[in-house]
């Protein structure tokens, strides 16, 4: 393994996950633009360190590359890792920030044959996978999907998982600036909320929204200090997205898909800590089937999957699946931001 980017997510999520998988994966190289962080994090796992992508990709000891850098670097680093002839690439979500980048990645993956996995951890959660195996015809009848995320600030769970080095100062809250029709701050929070938080569940949402290209965002609003209320339709399916990252100590992360006669409800465990898998419930009027919890979470699941792919014993996701997931997220983020402009136009008209 080589890891590009050694920030809090790498330190608190990926390295603890990999520490549980030492029999199948070994971290050999850590890269971060901050040399002190790179050296410190690499030392934890006995790996080499560097400050450049090229140096890590040129390291013959690295067979699998994990891209955990800031979003804007993902696409170019995925492409470079594919061209470096690695066995597999894991890219944190989102794996691109626009359709052109996604298409370029798909083309390079096809050309080089290097499989790509996007770190949408809930799609690898054993609770989700068990539900998927058990839900039968549920997707055909689902008319409503809800994703609700209530989380404490990340450092609370980072500190339960590891000892962070190089943590930057807390980002100024866009929320504080979001009073009044300050469209830039509101749009930034909505876009960040969709691409940074909702995106964890959007691949799950898309399983129940076959007309995922037919997205219409009906309402989008921010929640203080960080979060969103977004109402949308994808084809005939109603989708409601709720999130609040407040000062609460108790996390809650639920996903629901509801049809006339059956429904699915999943309670996910918090990120960062290894608290086992999600618990899924498939309900009808006559029964409730409980699936899970199982012993590992989706992060560990994605690493297991990556190892299987690199070993040739597992099948990589189809690139078009990853692209469609990204297109879905981008469409929602763009339309949510456009709602702000539409709302402000109405506000100005009403104020005139």
């Amino acid at each position, binding site marked *: 393994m080589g890891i590009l980017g050694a920030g809090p997510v790498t330190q608190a999520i990926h390295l603890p996950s990999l520490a549980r998988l030492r029999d199948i994966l070994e971290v050999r190289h850590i890269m971060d633009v901050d040399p002190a962080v790179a050296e410190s994090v690499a030392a934890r796992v006995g790996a080499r360190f560097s400050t450049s992508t090229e140096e890590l990709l040129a390291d013959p000891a690295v067979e699998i590359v994990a891209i955990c850098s800031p979003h804007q670097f993902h696409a170019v680093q995925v492409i470079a890792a594919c061209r470096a002839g690695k066995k597999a690439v894991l890219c944190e979500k989102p794996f691109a920030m626009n359709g052109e980048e996604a298409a370029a990645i798909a083309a390079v993956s096809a050309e080089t044959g290097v499989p790509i996995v996007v770190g949408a951890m809930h799609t690898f959660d054993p609770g989700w996978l068990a539900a998927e195996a058990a839900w039968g015809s549920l997707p055909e009848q689902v008319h409503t999907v809800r994703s609700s995320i209530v989380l404490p600030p990340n450092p609370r769970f980072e500190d339960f998982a590891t000892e962070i080095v190089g943590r930057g100062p807390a980002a100024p809250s866009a929320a504080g600036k979001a009073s009044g029709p300050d469209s830039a701050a509101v749009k930034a929070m909505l876009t960040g909320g969709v691409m940074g938080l909702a995106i964890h569940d959007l691949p799950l949402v898309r399983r129940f929204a076959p007309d995922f290209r037919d997205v219409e965002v009906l*309402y989008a609003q921010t929640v203080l200090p960080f979060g969103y209320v977004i109402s949308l339709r994808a084809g005939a399916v*109603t989708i409601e997205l709720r999130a609040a990252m407040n000062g609460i100590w108790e996390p809650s992360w639920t996903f629901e898909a*509801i049809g006339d006669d059956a429904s699915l409800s999943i309670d996910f465990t918090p990120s960062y800590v290894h608290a086992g898998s999600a618990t899924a419930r498939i309900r009808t009027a006559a029964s409730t089937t409980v699936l899970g919890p199982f012993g590992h979470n989706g992060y560990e699941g994605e690493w297991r999957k990556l190892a299987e792919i690199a070993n040739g014993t597992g099948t990589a996701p189809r690139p078009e699946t990853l692209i469609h997931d990204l297109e879905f997220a981008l469409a929602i983020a763009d339309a949510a931001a456009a709602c702000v402009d539409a709302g402000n136009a109405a506000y100005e008209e009403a104020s005139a």
Partner: protein
Amino acid sequence: MSTPLLVQAGPDAERAGTVGAVIASLPVSFAPADGGPDVVALAGTAGWAAAATEAVRSGVRGVVVVDPVAEDPAALAAAAAGAGTAVVLDQTWASNPILAESQAAVRTAIADALADAVLLDSVAWGVPGTDPEVLLTRHLGTVLAVGVELKDLRVIQRNSNGYTVIGSLPGGAPAALQGITTSSLPATATVSVLTSTGRADITLPDASAGWPAEVRSVTAAGATTFPTTYESAHRHSWRRLRAAVDSGAPEADLERFAALTELVGQLHDSPRSPHQPH
């Protein structure tokens, strides 16, 4: 010992309010009427306000209306006041005893959460085929009974599977009300108030049995689950009626329902607004 009030319920009221079973659980207060009733139970389907007014004019001492749809109760209120007749509305979730004025600790916890709210997220569940407006009336009545003051309400989407209504709380935090139909879940309502450091959650059960409501509060100090009350909204409504008949003090149900009806009326033709600036 008090004399049981004699109760008469039509088939629709019996079906909607399980009247026979409920009054059987209050045998000192009520008994089925063979002849002229003291109290009548009416189904709250369209025209209930006129039917209740007629019942008041017939001289009964009390009227219970089960699951009323949005209607102007002004004429009924005037008739009831004139005749000294007690009128109680048995609302699916709003009449749950956990929301009674006597539940001071619950009401304080909810009020504290509302004062610091960053988001209100509420879902009402109904069986397929439920008229979205009926579900929305039940839902709004519930949110109001919780003590929530809603502003700038508007319908974002509405179809046979439910609705989404968006508004805001007095402090500007968004309030999202969603109605969903399915047969896979009981007809419950949830009201979640997220605050800057915690949350309060109220889960109100289907009124057809004595499943308890659940109220849970999370603050920086920990989580509190309030004592459960195994009494249905129906039974609590009948107990309120008996108390009102005995005391002669009118319940405020019709006054509150007038506000609910006005709110539902405002939503009928509300334009869709994709984003409301703070």
